[in-house]
């Protein structure tokens, strides 16, 4: 890499958006109401994406997915166990 390319790297170093950018994204998300997710997730998602970048957004997404799996597992298992409970209760009466 020659001197000009070195200078270009310096000249084009990354710039950060202005202060309060994350709040403005959140406000835009609220205004547009575009996200097909529960509202309480929306703010968290936007904040995570803006503040921590794509890697953290992906981690957040995977976490939500894992959480949904846990809740789904509970619902399925609970539903089947509930059938047992109802049947036993019925037999006792």
């Amino acid at each position, binding site marked *: 890499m020659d001197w000009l390319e070195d200078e270009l790297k310096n000249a084009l170093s990354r710039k950060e958006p202005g202060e309060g950018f994350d709040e403005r994204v959140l406000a835009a998300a609220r205004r547009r109401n575009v996200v097909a997710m529960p509202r309480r997730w929306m703010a968290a998602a936007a904040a995570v994406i803006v503040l921590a970048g794509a890697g953290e957004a992906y981690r957040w997404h995977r976490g939500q*997915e894992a959480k949904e799996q846990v809740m789904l597992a509970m619902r399925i298992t609970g*539903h089947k166990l509930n059938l047992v409970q109802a049947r036993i209760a019925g037999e006792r009466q």
Partner: protein
Amino acid sequence: MTIVRVVAAGCGLAALLWAQQFKFNLEHLAAKASDAVDVSLNKDMLQFAGKFLSDKDSDEAKAKAMISGLEGIYIKSFEFAKDGAWTQADLDQVRNQLKPPEWGRIVGVKSAEDNENVEVWVRHESGKVTGIAVLATEPRGFTVANIVGNVNLDSLANLGGQFGLPKMKATPAPAKK
């Protein structure tokens, strides 16, 4: 066909866990199913999920407390468009892995009305519950759930109604086959 596949990568399972966790061998049913749910969460994934379960939401808080002692949750649930998609052999190959003395069936109910059968099995080791299995079948449905680890039955009992979980006694009835 709507297939809901919920799969989390399982990695680094200790040999001990293989003893607690049984094999499903039900892939052939997925192809016939109109709806399929496949949950596979090992301990790492449960811990990860726990970080995202809110303490403020009562459902999530209870789920969080419940998964804290678990090593894994594995569920396969299929719904079919017509009768006869699954066979007794499918049920037997799961049931045959639930052998005494570790595994004991604590309850099994049959419904003549809707032809639904549900069996609940508990695994014990050194006097401690180390897992439960739920086998539920109906003409157009087949569900197997395996919850591995230190399942706190008191916690489960406290969750009665929250997820539709029944209150169960910590000591299982003698195994019946």
